[in-house]
């Protein structure tokens, strides 16, 4: 669940600040750039007119977020923004709206979650008169979710263990040529695609996913799996501790590994699986639809998206931001014109329909 991904971004910022790789101010800017995706462990902030509550995945810099992002937005619009880090899982959003008195306005939820919830009448459609479609990538604007950044499941590997680097997802599943244990994502997303690609399915024929075939592939490969990781820090430590020699992990963590180990642990974009992140608006949100849409529009500024990329490594949703990224950092941008063609994007429509049942079946395979 990509909900875990957003949560992980906050962790990355805090870790880097703790290591002195970035200043506290940069960390706060990073939170700000998360666009409200920043999550500042408030209690449930009570929302009302002239006020927006943005819910994300945790963190503890409430005041900081207010200074870095809330205040400028408030100056611009007169609308106050409060941040709440309690985690907008599908279950939590459902409880908010069905409870009849939601306190949340905006959520950093998976686009497919927002879509599924929207169809059940729990989300407000994105108002594309205010949110600018031209500032989104082709194919990544949805009815109930506006894309705000991208990340990718990439093949990261311990280069010290192999004579030649792996160059495809087939290599990931080839333990003869590339010895050592592997790690895959515990919550399934991106892993079905990887298994099918390795099994010879052409990228354009991936969807609808042939789950049986994917699960057969994963089941047969299970003895080579050292662990299924559930969070970003875990994926990083599996490679660092030498528990596995190759792993399918988020590119944000892979970039950090590359930088921290000076390339001893590195990654390839080849056969990466791109996951989109999006902002959604709750049905009958207390702060009002228009204010919420203006907030989303404000997150589309390319300069801010570049800050986000520099802090965390997740790619801009506004294509205009790609060119603003300094030359030497572009290799870490999942959406860079150099890197994008090597990867395949998750199909939000498929996940909206099938994710629940697919994850049940996947867990059955991996934890058997």
């Amino acid at each position, binding site marked *: 669940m990509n909900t875990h991904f957003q949560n992980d971004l906050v962790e990355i910022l805090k870790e880097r600040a703790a290591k002195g790789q970035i200043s506290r101010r940069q960390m706060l800017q990073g939170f700000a750039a998360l666009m409200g995706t920043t999550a500042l462990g408030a209690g449930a902030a009570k929302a009302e007119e002239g006020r927006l509550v943005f819910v994300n995945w945790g963190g503890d810099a409430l005041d900081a977020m207010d200074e870095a992002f809330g205040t400028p937005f408030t100056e611009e619009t007169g609308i106050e923004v409060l941040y709440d880090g309690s985690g907008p899982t599908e279950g939590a959003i459902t409880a908010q709206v069905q409870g009849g008195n939601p306190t949340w306005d905006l959520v950093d939820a998976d686009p497919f979650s927002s879509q599924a919830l929207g169809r059940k009448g729990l989300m407000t459609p994105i108002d594309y008169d205010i949110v600018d479609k031209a500032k989104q990538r082709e194919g990544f604007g949805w009815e109930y979710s506006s894309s705000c950044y991208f990340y990718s499941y990439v093949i990261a590997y311990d280069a010290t263990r192999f004579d030649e680097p792996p160059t495809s997802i087939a290599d990931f599943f080839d333990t003869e040529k590339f010895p050592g244990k592997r790690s895959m994502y515990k919550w399934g997303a991106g892993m079905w695609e990887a298994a099918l690609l390795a099994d010879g399915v052409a990228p354009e024929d991936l969807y609808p996913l042939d789950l049986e075939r994917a699960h057969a592939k994963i089941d047969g490969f299970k003895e080579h799996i050292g662990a*299924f990781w559930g969070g970003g820090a*875990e994926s990083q430590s599996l490679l660092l501790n030498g528990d596995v020699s190759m792993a399918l992990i988020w590119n944000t963590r892979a970039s950090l590994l590359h930088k921290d180990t000076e390339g001893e642990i590195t990654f390839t974009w080849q056969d990466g699986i791109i996951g989109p992140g999006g902002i959604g608006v709750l049905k009958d949100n207390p702060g009002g639809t228009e204010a919420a849409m203006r907030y989303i529009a404000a997150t589309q500024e390319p300069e801010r998206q570049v800050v986000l990329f520099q802090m965390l490594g997740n790619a801009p949703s506004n294509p205009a931001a790609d060119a603003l990224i300094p030359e030497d950092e572009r290799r870490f941008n999942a959406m860079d014109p150099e890197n994008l063609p090597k990867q395949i994007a998750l199909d939000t429509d498929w996940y909206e329909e099938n994710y*629940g049942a697919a994850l049940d079946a996947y867990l059955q395979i991996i934890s058997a």
Partner: protein
Amino acid sequence: MRAFLFLICPVLLFLGVSYLLPFLGIVQLSFTDPDPGLAQYSRVLTEDLPTGVIWRTLRLCVMVTAVSVSCAYVITLLWVRGSPLVRSITELCIMIPFWISVLSRAFGWLSMLSNRGLLNTWLQDMGLIDSAIQMTRNEFAVVVGMSHYLIPFAVFPLATAMRNVDERVLTAADGMGASRLRIFWQVFLPMTSSGILGATLLVFVFSIGFYVTPALLGGGQSVLVAELIYLWIFQIPQWGMAAAMSVVLMLGVGGILYVLMRRYGEMAK
């Protein structure tokens, strides 16, 4: 007696509102979401994922209980019957883990047991093994981590039972010429069996609800009941399934408690 009932009324009311009503809500949900009927229960009790998870949870909890209670027995023996120095050292070993969060302890075990962890490094430095042994991200690590957490909880019922053993009975056995081993097996152990049962009960019931330790140390390959319920509530919302699983868990634990408590009551007499 009437005054007594009157005085505990607020507590009963509080428990009723904060426990019983929500629980009845859960029970209702388990029969109605998404459609009215018994479908959720039949899925929980027949589908591969939930039944697999239930069996794994039971199996793991039995292992953890056995390990924890046996270790705790030895530790308690040292604590209750050791020399003053041994006693104070044991006491520290029992108390210190209490002050460390369950999360830190799980991470501690990871850095201890992982492939480039302390244990593997030592073994390799001493030339005992050639390549690292995988000790984390499996059920072994989960049992170690959970037992480590639960041992202190098993110590207290055991200590009570051991302290209640009448010293004169042991002296008598000794006077009758029984060897130390025989005194332990035939006198001391049976006399502390109520403590063993109490500890087993406590540890087993506790272990069933574990979430963090198995999630971290199990490497995603040992999903337990608590994690599955979380998944069904928050991640892929199927509240009816989560509710049915909770009710099944509640009834299961309740049944075990009932049987063991009766046995415990008899023993304590």
